[in-house]
C-alpha cells in the first residue's frame, strides 16, 4: 500500500513557436500603408469606417474593398492602466491599454498609450500615433499612442509591401505530475519501477494513474516491476523535425515490462534497427546513478537480453 503522502512533482514546460500569418488583401494593405505612416480603414455597407479594416462586412458578410485613409490622431474612448507590463507588451514601463477612435473612423482601435501615469489618462483625451523606429510590419509599426502635448519625434517612413507577419507565441506552464505519477518518478530516482494495480480489474499500470481508466476506481496497490520486458511493437524514426531530442534514426518501441498490463514508449539500442522485432526481450540500460533524476530518462534505453523472443500470443492483446 502507498502510505507516505508527499508533494506532487512539478517542473516548467515552456512551449513556443514563431507562427506566421498570411495577411490577405485587406490586412496586407493595412500593414503596407502603416509602413508609409498612413492608417487605413475600410467602409462597411452601413457607411461605417472600420479601423483596423475588416475583410468581410459585419452586417452583410460581403467582402469589403473601399479603403478610407483616417487620421493619425484620435480620441480615447476607454482605457485601463497597466502598472506592471508583461514581456512582449508594447511598452516595458507602466502604460494604458486604450480603445482609440482615430479621426475619421467609426470603430476604436486597441493600442497602448504612453501617458506616464494614470492621472494623465482620461476618456475623451486626444492622442496621436508614435511610429516605431524599427518597423516589423503590422500593428507593431505603431509603437504606441501618446498625448498630443508630448514632444513629437520625427521617424522616417520605410515603405515596403507587407504580406505576412510573424506572430511568436510562448506559453510557460508549470507542469505537475499526479501524486501517483510523482511516487513513480521518485521511484525512478532510486532506480525502481513502481506501478499500481487496479483493485477491480487487476491490471497493473506503469506509470500508475490516479484512477483505472476502465473502472474509474483509485489504483492503490503498489507493484514493483522488473526492468525487463518485451517489445510489443515499434517503429524506426528516420525523420528529423523541429524540437527533436534524439538524433534519428532511432527505434521507438512500446516496452511491456514483465508483470505490467500496459506498454510505454522508449528507445531500443544495442542492436541494429533492422534486428528489432515484435516480441524481442529487452532490459533497461540505466544511466550512471549520479545522473539520475525523477524521470524515465534515467533509463537511457532498452537493449536486447538475448533470451528467446516472447511468443506473439503472449503480447497480442497488448497491441
Amino acid at each position, binding site marked *: 500500500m502507498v502510505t507516505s503522502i508527499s508533494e506532487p*512533482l512539478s*517542473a516548467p*514546460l515552456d*512551449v513556443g*513557436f514563431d*507562427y*506566421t*500569418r*498570411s495577411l*490577405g*488583401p*485587406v*490586412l496586407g494593405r493595412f500593414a503596407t500603408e502603416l509602413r508609409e505612416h498612413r492608417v487605413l480603414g475600410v467602409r462597411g455597407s452601413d457607411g461605417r469606417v472600420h479601423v483596423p479594416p*475588416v*475583410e*468581410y*462586412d*459585419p*452586417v452583410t*458578410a460581403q467582402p469589403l474593398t473601399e479603403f478610407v485613409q483616417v487620421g493619425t490622431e484620435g480620441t480615447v474612448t476607454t482605457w485601463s492602466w497597466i502598472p506592471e507590463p508583461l514581456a512582449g507588451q508594447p511598452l516595458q514601463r507602466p502604460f494604458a491599454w486604450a480603445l482609440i477612435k482615430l479621426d475619421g473612423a467609426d470603430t476604436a482601435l486597441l493600442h497602448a498609450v504612453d501617458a506616464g501615469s494614470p492621472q494623465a489618462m482620461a476618456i475623451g483625451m486626444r492622442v496621436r500615433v508614435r511610429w516605431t523606429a524599427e518597423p516589423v510590419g503590422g500593428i507593431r509599426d505603431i509603437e504606441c499612442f501618446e498625448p498630443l502635448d508630448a514632444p513629437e519625434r520625427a521617424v522616417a517612413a520605410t515603405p515596403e509591401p507587407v*504580406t*505576412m507577419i510573424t*506572430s511568436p507565441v510562448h506559453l510557460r506552464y508549470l*507542469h505537475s*505530475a499526479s501524486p501517483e*505519477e510523482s511516487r513513480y*518518478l521518485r521511484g525512478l530516482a532510486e532506480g525502481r519501477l513502481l506501478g499500481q494495480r487496479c483493485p477491480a*480489474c487487476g*491490471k497493473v*499500470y506503469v506509470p500508475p494513474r490516479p484512477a*483505472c*481508466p*476502465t473502472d474509474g476506481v483509485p489504483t492503490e496497490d503498489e507493484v514493483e516491476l522488473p526492468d525487463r520486458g518485451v517489445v*510489443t*511493437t*515499434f*517503429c*524506426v*524514426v*528516420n*525523420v528529423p*523535425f*523541429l524540437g*527533436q531530442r534524439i538524433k534519428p534514426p532511432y527505434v*521507438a*518501441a*512500446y516496452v511491456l515490462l514483465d508483470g505490467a*498490463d*500496459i506498454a*510505454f*514508449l*522508449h528507445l531500443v539500442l544495442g542492436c541494429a*534497427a533492422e534486428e528489432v522485432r*515484435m516480441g524481442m526481450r529487452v532490459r533497461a540500460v540505466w544511466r550512471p546513478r549520479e545522473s539520475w533524476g525523477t*524521470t*524515465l*530518462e534515467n533509463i537511457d534505453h532498452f537493449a536486447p537480453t538475448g533470451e528467446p523472443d516472447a511468443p*506473439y500470443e503472449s503480447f497480442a*492483446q497488448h*497491441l
Partner: protein
Amino acid sequence: MAKQLAAVIGTGQTHHTAKRQDVSMAGLCREAIDRAMADAGVDWPEIDAVVLGKAPDLFEGVMMPELFLADALGATGKPLLRVHTAGSVGGSTGNVAASLVQSGVHRTVLAVAFEKQSESNAMWALSILPPFSMPVGAGAGGYFAPHVRSYIRRSGAPEHIGAVVAAKDRRNGARNPYAHLKQPDITVESVRSSPMLWDPIRYDETCPSSDGAAAVVIADESVASGRPAAWIHATAMRTEPTTFAGRDQVNPQAGRDAAAALWREAGITDPLSEVDVAEIYVPFSWFEPMWLENLGFSELGQGWKLTEAGETALGGRLPVNPSGGVLSSNPIGASGLLRFAEAAMQVMGRAGEHQVDGARIALGHAYGGGSQYFSLWVVGAERPGAR
C-alpha cells in the same frame, strides 16, 4: 424520437496546396464557403447558423479562431459553434451541423472547416514533450507507425499493400482539380522505393501538409426538396481514451461501435454490397485496410485483400477515396469535412472526373487523436427508406 430529414444541398472547397500565402484564414474559409453557397444556390439571409471545425489550437497558435472569424463566416447575429475533435473535427463538424437540422432547431446550416498548415508546424505541435517523460515521440507518423506494424503482423498482409493504397489514392487525386498532390504516374514500385520515414511508413505513404478549407450547406426537407441533394441517412460519433490496458490500437472499439450504430441507423446490413463509394480518413496508407475492417467492410484480417484485389480502386467493388483522400490533400481541420463533402458530391453526381458511376449510397469517415474520435455519415441520392 424520429429525426427530421436533412440533406447536403451544396459543397465547396479550396484548391488545396502547401502554402496559400495570398489569403488570410478568413479568406481561405470564404473561398470554400462561397463555393458551397453558390453550389447550394443559397444566400446569407437563408443561413440560420454556422458550425466551424478546426484542429487543436496549437496547430496554428490561434485561440478560439471562431471569434475573430465570425464576420467572415457570416455569423453575425447567428448561432456560431466550434467543434473540436482533433483530426476527426471536419467530420464531427458535419455531424453537428446535421444534428441542428435533424433536431428541427434550424432549417439551413453552414458547416465549414479549415487548416492553414503553412502558418505553423504540426509535427512540432504533436511532439511537445512534458517534463519527466522520454523524448521518443515523433509526430503523427511516429505515433501511428507502431500500430501499422501491429496490423501487418496481426493480419499477415503482404508488405506492398500500403504502397497499393498510396499509388491508388494519389492517382485518384490527379483526377481531382482541388487536390494538393496530383501524381498520375505514381506506381506501387515508385512508392516502395520512396524513403522510409517512420518504418514501416514510407514518404509516399504519408499525407502532405496542406492549406485548405471545406464547406457544406445542410438543409431540412422543405428547403432541400426539388434541389440536387445528398440525403443524410445516418450519422455516428464515438470516442475512447488514448491509452488503457488492453486497448486495441489497431481496431479501436470506438470505431467499431460507431460503424455498428451507423449501419443500423442507415438500415445497412451488408456494407460492402450496399455502399457504392467510401471516403475514408487515410492519412497513412495502411489505414485503408485497417479501417475497412474496423468499419465492417470485411472480416478481421481480410481488409487488405480488398485493397490487393483492386476492389477499392475506381471501378472496383467499393471505390475508396476517389477524391484522392487525405493522402492527396491534408488541411487537417478540413480533412474530415472533405471526406463528408466528397461522399455528398458522389451521390449528387457532381464529382466530375472522380465520379463513381451510379453512386447512390456513400460513406464519409473521419478519425482523430490517437484513433480516439470517430465521425461518420452515410448519404444517399434518395431520401432514407426510398431504396
